[in-house]
């Protein structure tokens, strides 16, 4: 990649010879003002997009503090009372349960995804055996297709195992559908780890399993962190899988909705019950953990997601 080279002295603004006649470069000496106008121009667009991102989110948050009448009134009105009751109401209306359900599922599905994904990726990345490439491509190809293409048979597979509307069913499905990307990501990560330490551990008499858990896994921590956050985000935000697989199958069965699914459910109910502030408060509650995770790990998230899309 790019080699660290001493800054050439030439790059200081004014000393660069400019070509005459090129449109945006009036001539030497004008560089500062040119940069200024163009920066105003680019900043204008950048700020505009930032506003377009923040404004709707902020507006929605404010709407949680409004009354139904105010929400139906003018969109630009300011809430009159700042009562946090609405968040409690939203929690009781089901958000609390959905939140817990999602936490329960993720508490198992994320660690399992990481373990299985890392195991498969490790073996595929560092051991030669017949069929290695085949198994690898087999795993990775699963990331190519939208989930719902397989939804019809998947539904009946789970029905056969009596795992519809159960946590364990959804956990296994989440793990299975997270494997392609996890294997792909960890595969390239394990390849970059040095072999010397591995060999040293083997000479010291460590078994393959031991090398994996006590040498390779600790070395792979940065990679595991990136893909771990990615899986948390992906599984927390999953909507199609739970909305098909987590429906009460008999009338007596309790619902175990995930957060995203519950929000949509709530939205459809609120269409009739007209308690929109509760819905918006629910969205705020659902958004908060993601905001916290994002702000604390935004570097890893951005690095992890982009690393996954680049060869």
């Amino acid at each position: 990649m790019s080699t660290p080279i001493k800054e050439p002295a030439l790059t200081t603004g004014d000393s660069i010879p400019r070509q005459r006649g090129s449109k945006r470069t009036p001539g030497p000496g004008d560089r500062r003002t040119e940069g200024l106008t163009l920066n105003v121009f680019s900043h204008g667009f950048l700020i505009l997009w930032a506003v377009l991102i923040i404004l709707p989110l902020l507006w929605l948050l404010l709407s949680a503090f409004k009354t139904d009448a105010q929400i139906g009134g003018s969109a630009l009105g300011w809430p009159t009372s700042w009562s946090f009751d609405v968040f409690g109401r939203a929690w009781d209306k089901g958000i609390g349960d959905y939140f817990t359900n999602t936490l329960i599922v993720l508490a198992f599905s994320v660690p399992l995804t990481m373990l299985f994904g890392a195991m498969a990726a490790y073996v595929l990345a560092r051991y030669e055996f017949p069929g290695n490439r085949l198994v690898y491509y087999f795993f990775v190809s699963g990331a190519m297709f939208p989930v719902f293409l397989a939804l019809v048979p998947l539904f009946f597979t789970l029905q056969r195992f009596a795992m519809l509307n159960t946590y364990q069913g959804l956990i296994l499905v989440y793990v299975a559908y997270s494997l392609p990307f996890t294997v792909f990501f960890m595969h390239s990560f394990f390849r970059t780890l040095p072999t010397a330490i591995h060999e040293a551990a083997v000479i010291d008499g460590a078994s393959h399993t031991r090398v994996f858990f006590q040498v390779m896994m600790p070395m792979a921590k940065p990679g595991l962190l990136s893909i771990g956050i990615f899986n948390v985000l992906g599984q927390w935000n999953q909507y199609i899988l739970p909305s098909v697989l987590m429906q009460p199958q008999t009338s007596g069965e309790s619902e175990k909705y995930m957060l995203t699914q519950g929000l949509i459910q709530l939205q459809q109910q609120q269409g009739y019950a007209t308690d929109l502030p509760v819905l918006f408060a629910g969205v705020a509650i659902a958004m908060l953990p993601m905001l916290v995770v994002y702000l604390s790990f935004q570097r890893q998230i951005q690095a992890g997601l982009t690393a996954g899309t680049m060869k």
Partner: protein
Amino acid sequence: MRKGQNRFIAGFLLAPLTLYLIFVIWPYIQTVGYSFTNWTGQSPVFDFVGLDNYTELFRDDVFRTALWHNILLLVFIPVVTILIALFFAFMVNVGGRSAAGGVHGVRGSGFYKIIYFFPQVLSLAILAVLFQAVYRSDQGGLLNGLLMKMGLVDANSPIEWMNDPDLVLWCLMVIIVWHGVGFYLVLFSAAMQSIPKEIYEAALLDGAGRAQTFFRVTLPLLWDSVQTAWVYLGIVAMDMFVLASTMTPGTGFGGGPDHHGEVMATVLMRNFLYFGKSGYACAMGVVMLILTMIISVITLRATRRERIEF
């Protein structure tokens, strides 16, 4: 030693591979198999009907409309998202080169990246609720409210965003672009940052302007990432299920008004869970599977260029 190694490999692959086969690969294969049957899903009995589902599919007006919508989205979503993301990525990384030294981004570029990327971590369900409120068809909606304030829309006849047959699809597209730009900005930024500074400096010395730098230097070196982005956005455009099914009017996974908001995914789910036509729904799945593959192959071939190493 050798034997132990084989047992270790098998042991490590067993659990992941089994899970993956049962819940991912097998359903995909079954989709193909069921697509040749008249299976309803409820009864265990079903017959092999050959290509009947497929011939019915191509006579099905709703499905054809949905297919057409997906193709429309397939063209517009990648183009719009990539153009905006490229523009911003260039601004953020190379835009502020005026000051004392070399090439760098505008001030506050890190801040912009954080803000822009945020929609990416929100679930589409949250976006559905959010934009449902934004697109409200009275003055309580953010868009209508703003437009009325500016005097562009009459308060008595607000724009019915999601109920207008001509607007509904574009409204969905805007959400996807809003959601995606930040991610592709970061993706392109990473690619831009791996371009050696010396290349920019050389261009600068040769007197290249900003536009020239972008089209002659940055874009060719970024081509790989643009291509990847295209494939990813193509897959997004094929999907669209969450937004279309929750935001468009109509019973049984939306698709309204009058099928103007229909995408293939909503038609598939309606046939599967509402009409109980599982075999028919599977045939749709197969068509989408094939389309997805075609898109990937076309994109990768059409955009193939001489790879530039640096």
